[in-house]
């Protein structure tokens, strides 16, 4: 960002300083295993063009942010991830969080729901309502949002393999409130490829999964213009063990596959790309994380413009949600997590996130209690209203260290993407196990660094104390599973069985053909056909994914 003449003048001075400092290291040694350079100067930030590489917020390549005024206008959306037990209990937690000043909803579904099983399925035993809320049918979706006007809130749903079905239920639940699809705002995660490599809640093989995604893209672009049709998951790739550049690159490679599939299906890139959103993690290395967000924005803008010919600036903007890293938290001395979460949240805000979920301090042990959930939300409000960090756009922009790290992460991520391209793209790279192996290698290296002490974890491999966990953790009532099964049996007894059978037959017919599945899924949701029934039909047509068990 400095002109070449100045850099030429500067170079000998920097070299001289480096030489003197190196010579003095014998007397004043540095700590081992430091991740970054000792000092960054204008030489590291390079002679690149300010206008081309950094530029202005709200303008290509969006390095400094996607809006010109960022948080000076509207603060980020504070959207805590929440859901457990039954729809009624989660509904009460949502109303509590909204009353505490949360500005958007984020639904956590239980594992049976995420994998397309009803609560009474044998596979669901012990899992109902545990890591999220159980939703078996439209009846549960109605109860989940009872008293919450769906034309007034935006709702993010962490749902992937059966995302099309849950979206259909949400649309049907909105109809019951008198809200039209065009009035809805929200997000479905809908990112199946990262499930195969990192998160594990897949159902169908890749090809029919890509078709379901393309169908939701086409439906949302036409009927729910304010809906984010996908939230591409970088978060889960990082949490599974990858490094920062891999987090960006593997998620981008997946997104490239979705875009190519949609373009091949005949969609115009600018018709759907503005509705692509993202979820990243905020891990512990604050400087690297800020640079990661900036690098990701710039690389994505360039990819969209140069690779896909996207003309709409909104197609080039990387709009993202950040969830602070769960794997960074420790069950030892859980109060320490409050501090970790706070600076992870700061990294997200310095990095220009559009929405943020902060973990609760007890998440390495159990689900958050109401008190710890409130503290997590307060952490965001403290940053927003008391720290001053929200008052300047991209305040770290121009710091030599941050610009140099931004360049470095962008280049490393681009190199990873080139390797995946050479393997035939994300789907082929996943089917061949390449991405899984890369993530497993990084995860193992990170674990070794902790075990050798190279990476200090406060309270774990240093500064540990004898401690016992206190008893104040949220536990899900073990009777939730039984209660949910009773609800389900009652629903099946009172609904119109003939209508359900006919609707499921229509889903099967469309699934076997090539038409968009969304209308038949919405029609099936309206009859109170269950998630398990609908996914059962789709399993029959599409088959199930069979993973390998490499480690």
């Amino acid at each position, binding site marked *: 960002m400095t002109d070449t003449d100045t850099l030429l003048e500067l170079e000998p001075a920097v070299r001289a300083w480096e030489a003197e400092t190196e010579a003095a290291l014998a007397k004043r040694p540095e700590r081992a295993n430091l991740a970054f350079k000792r000092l960054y100067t204008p030489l590291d930030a390079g002679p690149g063009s300010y206008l081309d590489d950094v530029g202005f917020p709200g303008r290509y390549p969006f390095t400094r942010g996607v809006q010109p005024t960022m948080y000076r206008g509207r603060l980020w959306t504070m959207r805590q991830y929440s859901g457990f037990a039954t729809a009624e209990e989660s509904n009460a937690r949502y109303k509590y969080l909204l009353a505490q000043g949360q500005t958007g909803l984020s639904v956590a579904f239980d594992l049976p729901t995420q994998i397309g099983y009803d609560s009474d399925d044998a*596979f669901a*035993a*012990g*899992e109902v309502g545990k890591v999220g809320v159980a939703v078996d049918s439209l009846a549960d979706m109605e109860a989940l949002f009872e008293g919450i006007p769906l034309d007034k809130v935006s709702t993010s749903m962490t749902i992937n393999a059966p995302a099309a079905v849950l979206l259909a239920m949400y649309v049907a639940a909105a109809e019951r409130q008198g809200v039209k699809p065009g009035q809805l705002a929200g997000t479905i995660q809908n990112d199946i490829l990262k499930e195969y490599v990192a998160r594990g809640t897949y159902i169908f093989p890749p090809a029919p999964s890509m078709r379901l995604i393309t169908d939701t893209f086409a439906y949302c672009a036409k009927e729910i213009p304010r809906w984010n049709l996908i939230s591409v998951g970088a978060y889960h790739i990082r949490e599974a*063990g990858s490094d920062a550049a891999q987090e960006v690159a593997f998620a981008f490679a997946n997104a490239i596959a979705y875009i190519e599939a949609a373009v091949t299906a005949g969609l115009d890139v600018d018709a759907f790309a503005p509705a692509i959103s993202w979820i990243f993690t905020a891990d512990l290395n604050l400087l690297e994380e800020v640079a990661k967000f900036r690098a990701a924005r710039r690389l994505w803008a360039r990819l969209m413009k140069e690779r896909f010919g996207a003309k709409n600036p909104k197609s080039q903007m990387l709009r993202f949600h950040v969830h602070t890293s769960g794997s960074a938290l420790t069950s030892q001395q859980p109060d320490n997590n409050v501090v970790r979460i706070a600076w992870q949240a700061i990294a997200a805000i310095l990095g220009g996130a559009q929405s943020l979920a902060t973990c609760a301090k007890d998440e390495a042990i*159990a689900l958050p209690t109401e008190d710890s959930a409130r503290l997590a939300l307060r952490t965001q409000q403290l940053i927003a209203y008391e720290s001053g960090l929200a008052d300047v756009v991209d305040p770290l922009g121009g710091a030599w260290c941050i610009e140099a790290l931004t360049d470095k992460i962008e280049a490393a991520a681009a190199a990873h993407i080139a390797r995946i391209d050479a393997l035939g793209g994300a789907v082929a790279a996943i089917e061949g196990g390449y991405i899984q192996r890369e993530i*497993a290698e990084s995860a*193992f290296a990170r674990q070794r660094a902790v075990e050798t002490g190279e990476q200090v974890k406060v309270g*774990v491999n240093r500064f540990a104390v004898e401690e016992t966990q206190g008893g104040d953790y949220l536990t899900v009532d073990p009777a939730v599973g039984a209660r949910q099964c009773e609800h389900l049996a009652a629903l099946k007894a009172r609904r119109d069985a003939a209508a359900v059978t006919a609707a499921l037959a229509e889903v099967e017919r469309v699934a076997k053909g090539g038409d968009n599945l969304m209308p038949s899924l919405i029609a099936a949701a309206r009859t109170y056909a269950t998630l398990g029934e609908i996914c059962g039909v789709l399993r029959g047509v599409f088959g199930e994914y069979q993973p390998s068990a490499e*480690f």
Partner: protein
Amino acid sequence: MMKPIRVLVAKPGLDGHDRGAKVVARALRDAGFEVIYTGLRQPPERIAEVALQEDVDAIGLSLLSGAHNTIFPRLFAELHARELDDLLVFGGGVIPEGDVPGLKAMGVAEVFGPGTPTAAVIDFLKGRLAA
């Protein structure tokens, strides 16, 4: 030379978090154990059946979904049906300490929480099995 210890590392239930299971599997292998990893979504009957077929000395279950109080009893029932009551069963993942006494009472030899060094798992297995 001593016969290597054979360990089955399993992911039961629907939980997809396999980072810990894979890291432990690999650390055990590097430490000289013979390791079989089941992959995701294994029902208890299948885990018991693999344990029988593979003639393992120990089974490690990785659970982060909160289903541990349901899944461990079902695994023990399946092991009992195959006369594998003597197998060493241990667990890891996100399991509240309050649940650990109950799990130990039903026969879980040890529970390793987040932050456990893999060396602790290795030492534990060697201590219990390398007689």
